[in-house]
């Protein structure tokens, strides 16, 4: 845990500074943001198979007390429940001197031990698309008790595993408290190690949300892995290790093939949609030349190009008017379509959103979008 960098409940849309540049006389600025949602599968179905066993005959023959031993306990796909008593009675039938008789044996019983097994599975189909930098992005894991007894699990995140281009920075772990399969900021409880370790019955599952922050300065296509680790609080270690009386119903707990711990790797994929702004100017002086003299007309043109994967959301171009110039009313256009100067229904304005500044909303752009062009005219005073 990193309390100092804890990010509270802001795990969906993010904004980040532009990577765009503006060449020419004046600086420009663009804002881009991306947001992603990943569908989450729900936990596996819980098959409960009840088998009718061959106790029938024995039960009829035995006394009412023995009939209480008849089957009824469910058998789970992952093994008989820890603490289940398994009884057995044998019978013998025979004839002596022409008379048939029978006898029942003693009842032999044993208890089923608890097997400690756990599984963690990453739920997102592919790397979570992120920006660089990015704040508190959620990826989802499914924790399943694959043992046959009740157990609880200590969770932790390892972002330092290799095989990737960057390390996400773990912020928080959340539990799907309301069981709806998606992260609900402010509703799903934050996980506190030792405080609310998930307690799971056999075959029960818990969705776990891991929040990571993404560093700055990464490149489009960079992969960052984040590993969720769950360790049985009853016991973990070498498979086959017996922990006397640690299991349900005072049975022994035996560490299963998982070693009593599970881990799964999730990943983030940098979708660095970068916006490049190219600004150019054509000068026309009153004499028909191209000298920047008083009365000369400056035709500015800004081309916005998006590269990389992902979507740059709500791209806005702002460009302060040059000093000592006067904006030519009605000269603003976007993609060769005129825009009014006022802040109204169209995408742009001059001086309304920001004083002495051209502001144009280009909307959501991706690498597939055509080049966006904003143009306007000023006259040198």
């Amino acid at each position, binding site marked *: 845990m990193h309390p100092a960098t804890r990010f509270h409940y802001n795990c969906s849309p993010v904004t980040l500074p532009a990577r765009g540049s503006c060449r020419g006389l004046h600086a420009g600025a663009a804002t881009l943001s991306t947001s992603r949602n990943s569908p989450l599968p729900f936990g596996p179905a819980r098959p409960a198979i009840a088998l*009718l066993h*061959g106790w029938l*005959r024995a039960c009829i023959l035995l006394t009412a007390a023995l009939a209480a031993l008849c089957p009824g306990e469910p058998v789970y796909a992952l093994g008989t429940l820890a603490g289940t008593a*398994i*009884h057995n009675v044998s*019978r*013998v039938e025979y004839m002596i001197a022409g008379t048939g008789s029978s006898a029942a044996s003693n009842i*032999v019983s044993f208890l089923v031990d608890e*097997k400690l097994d756990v599984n963690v599975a990453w739920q997102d189909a592919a790397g979570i698309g992120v920006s660089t930098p990015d704040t508190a992005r959620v990826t989802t894991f499914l924790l399943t008790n694959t043992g046959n007894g009740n157990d609880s699990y200590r969770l932790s995140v390892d972002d330092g595993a290799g095989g990737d281009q960057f390390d996400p920075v773990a912020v928080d772990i959340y539990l799907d408290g309301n069981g709806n399969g998606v992260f609900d900021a402010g509703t799903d409880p934050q996980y506190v190690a030792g405080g609310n370790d998930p307690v799971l019955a056999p075959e029960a599952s818990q969705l776990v949300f891991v929040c990571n922050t993404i560093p700055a300065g990464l490149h489009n296509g960079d992969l960052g892995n984040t590993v969720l680790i769950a360790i049985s609080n009853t016991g973990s270690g070498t498979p086959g290790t017996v922990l006397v009386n640690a299991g349900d119903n005072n049975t022994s707990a035996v560490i299963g093939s998982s070693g009593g711990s599970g881990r799964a790797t999730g990943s983030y994929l940098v979708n660095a949609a970068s916006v490049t702004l190219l600004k150019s100017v054509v000068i026309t002086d009153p004499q028909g030349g191209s000298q920047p003299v008083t009365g000369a007309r400056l035709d500015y043109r800004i081309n916005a190009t998006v590269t990389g994967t992902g979507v740059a959301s709500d791209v806005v171009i702002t460009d302060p008017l040059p000093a000592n110039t006067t904006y030519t009313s009605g000269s603003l256009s976007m993609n060769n379509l005129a825009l009014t100067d006022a802040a109204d229904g169209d995408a742009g304005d001059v001086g309304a959103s920001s004083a002495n500044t051209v502001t144009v909303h280009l909307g959501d752009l991706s690498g597939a979008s055509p080049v966006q062009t904003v143009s306007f005219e000023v006259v040198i005073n």
Partner: protein
Amino acid sequence: MKTSVRISTGLLLSFLSFSVLAQIEVSARAETEVVETAATGEKIVKRIDATTVVPGAEVIYTINARNTGSDPAKHVVVTNPVPQSTVYVDGSAAGDNTDIMFSVDGGKSYAHADKLTVHDENGKPRKAEAADYTNVRWTLRSELQPSRQLPVSYRVKVK
């Protein structure tokens, strides 16, 4: 039998009938195998009484029928259901001089392993597998003489 003169005919009959019942006694035990390494490095398989068993492990049931009476017993048949939450281990039933059969219908009928069929979920018959067995039956091929024993055994795997 000094007291017999003072008990009623009915009680005497029931006592006689009890003494007939007690002619063969049957006992059962459940064990698991543990492998121990001797000082020589030799691996020794030891059987211990099963008190707690981990899922997936095998349990050995040993059943012993003893003729405690004075008359030989004919048609001696030992039966044992495969307990709930366990599966019969293929080929594990043993018993000297016995005919071993299995049931897949809770003990209503028995047949040799290769003659048993069950119906799949589509109602089609198929050859029964060890996991389908519900009961095991040993039929002694000869009489069980007084003071002789009939030990039989089989294994199950805990689900």
